[in-house]
């Protein structure tokens, strides 16, 4: 199994541990990841200013993966959602396709509807398979209570992103279970982390995050498990910086899913970027 690894803009600088842990875990599970240096931004951040710019961004990434004849795997749910959404728009309009391909042709690139885009969790669950992962779990994280943080953009709109049942997903809980941990049931598990409003309305952004952490506390979670660059940045970097010393916020740290699974697989902590 081989994929083009789409890490997006934030991982190299802000979350190198996400790349590290994803690669080491997938490598053990027989999935090869290929870096394509020319990949650009997925287009998600610019979508609110220009949908066309966002679609061009996605199309160029897909065209680059096409050149290598590889499907795309991304660990970021916002990247995933936007790549899927723009791809869907391109599938639906010949005019749009021609317009975008005209721009791409300047670089000798071309978008076609023949590349699959997959999120890390989907690949683990559907391509690698729960049974195979189970065989690799040597140190099950027994009794560890984990709140699965689904992330909006991979889940909805369901008919476009095709990740899991958008109203009652199970994929993340299953993956937590296979690591031996116990997924908790919490009412805000499908809600937004607040990061899309960071830098735009910081108060609201923090409020949404705080409410989620409080909800995870009610469910007795020990960790909030993420599988998205932006969600993790919100629950880790931004929270540590902005809510530092605020004791009213429950102390539930965030953990990246590949780090969690990596621990259960007995991979060295350093190799997982801890």
């Amino acid at each position, binding site marked *: 199994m081989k994929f083009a690894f789409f890490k997006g*803009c*934030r991982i*190299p*600088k802000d979350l190198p541990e996400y790349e590290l842990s994803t690669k080491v875990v997938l490598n053990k599970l027989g999935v090869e990841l290929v870096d394509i240096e020319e990949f*650009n*931004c997925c287009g998600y*951040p*610019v*979508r*609110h*200013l*220009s*949908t*066309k*710019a966002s679609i*061009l*961004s996605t199309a*160029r990434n897909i065209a680059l993966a096409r050149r290598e004849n590889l499907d795309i795997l991304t660990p970021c749910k916002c990247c995933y959602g936007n790549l899927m959404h723009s791809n869907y728009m391109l599938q639906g309009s010949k005019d749009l396709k021609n317009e975008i391909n005209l*721009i791409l042709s*300047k*670089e000798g690139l071309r978008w076609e509807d023949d590349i699959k885009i997959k999120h890390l969790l989907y690949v683990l669950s559907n391509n690698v398979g729960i049974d195979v992962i189970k065989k690799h779990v040597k140190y099950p994280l027994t009794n560890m209570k984990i709140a699965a943080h689904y992330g*909006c*953009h991979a*889940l*909805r*709109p*369901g008919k476009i992103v095709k990740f899991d049942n*958008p*109203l009652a997903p199970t994929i993340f809980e299953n993956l937590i279970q296979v690591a031996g941990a116990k997924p908790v049931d919490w009412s805000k598990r*499908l*809600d*937004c982390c*607040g990061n*899309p*409003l960071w*830098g*735009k*309305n910081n108060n*609201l952004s923090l*409020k*949404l995050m705080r*409410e989620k952490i409080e909800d995870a506390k009610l469910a007795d979670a020990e960790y909030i498990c993420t599988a998205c660059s932006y969600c993790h940045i919100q629950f880790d970097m931004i929270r540590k910086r902005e809510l530092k010393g605020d004791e009213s916020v429950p102390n539930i740290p965030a953990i990246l899913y590949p780090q969690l699974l990596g621990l259960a697989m007995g991979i060295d902590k350093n190799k997982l970027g801890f």
Partner: protein
Amino acid sequence: MFFSISFKISLAIFVLGTLYRIINWFRFKIGTDALSFTMIDRIKSGVIGIFKTIFSLKIFSIIKVLILDVVLQIKIIRADKWRWIMHMCIFYGFMLLLLMHAFENQITKALFKNYASTLNPFMFLRNLFGAIVIFGVLIAVLRRKKTPKILTNAHDSFAIFLLFSIMLSGFVLEGLKIISSPIFDEMVSSYISGSDDITPLKAYWAKKFHVVFKEKININDEKLLSEGESSHIDNCASCHSMPETAFISYPFAVSFKHFGNTLNDFRVDRWLWYFHVLSCFLGLAYLPFSKFFHILSTPINLLLEPAEEEKNKVTSRIIGMDACTHCGVCTENCSVAQIYQVTQNPNILPSEKLASIKLLSRGKKVEREKLNEIAEGSFICTNCYRCTKVCPSGINLDDLWTASKNTLIQQGYFEPHNWIAQKSPSEWAETVKKKKDEPSDLIDNPEIFYGCVQCSTCASVCPVVAASNGNEIDLTPQQVMNLLRMGLKDLAMASKMVWNCTTCYMCEENCPQGIRVTDIFYELRNKAYIRFKDVKENV
């Protein structure tokens, strides 16, 4: 006389220009953290910083940078192998010419006792170094042509043109001198006594050195030639190697022979000498104001990197901007460069944004339209850090972008989310009521909203509605849909609900009528951004 006056003038311009640029390193500012330092503070901490660094262990890291990044220019090779070859050819080719040829009286003569510019290896080396520079220049031109992502501006073209014309005029000038009979006559009158018959020497030089004489000279008369040869050995040979070794100028000379008399009559060699010398002096005078200034600023910027001190951050930021060579490697690697193809705003591209931010740092008034463009480019940047990682000049671009964003925000140029929030939806609607834009098949199509029964499911699942204490939203999602159904899109566009939406798609997923609420919000933002940014005042 002409030479020394024009040299002194251009040297004076060079010195004054360089001083001006250096003073500006302490004068210009970008970033809100720059406001708390005066120019004197900055000069003081700069000088202290230099001394502190020289007498500390940091000096070793600086020596390392000096060898790797300044002398060997490893950072360039990391970015692109061909670019490194280009830069090494131009820089070292030019430097060797400068030392051996331009400073021949000061350097070469001192090192080699028998130096003459027409002797080998010097004649050969001059051509070789020139050829190396031309090779580098050609790579530069090809690279810019072959990489559509890199924009080339007037400074780039002029720098390339100037280098090329200095080199080419040098080659041609030497070719013209080879065939010049006036120069031959001058030499004869200086080195041979007037009573001698120089016809044999002329024959020899016409045949072997390709000098073009006006009168007819038999160059096939063996006797004449052998007499000429002995006169040559007595009088000329100690200073003249065979012209073939000037392997580029020589073919020029041979091809000029057909119209050699005309060239000699008009003394084209002299005119070209003026051109060659003036081009060089122009380059010297123009250096502090051109991208050639990076010869000074880039090494300084690279050397400052290991010495980076918080106190000198503001100053290093300005030096960093001066260290930019507009090579375009940042833009080639930029995560959002492709967006330029859609918006045509060059300030999205880091290499171009840097030039705009330079304007901003001067503290002079920048036009509103320009500021809007810089702000757009600045906020589209995703802080992916790739530009900073690849910059061959070692500019801390990431820090520069953060600083310039702060300056922009301080001057009232925010993210659209923030400036749109400064007016109420009805105030915005009023400003754009006469504007027409391209109708879209989503928000301009009332049929899309026919299905909406105002059941308020969207509002009840919306996390923003739930979290709001009344300040975050003015309308609920279903009220926005209702406005659109009534064709009041101008009013819907600036609604707080639309701009505080997290795009979590809860509403759209849960809508029993399948209305694409979130996509509609996205489209409203797209439209609002275009419609309002034109009428946006300096808020």
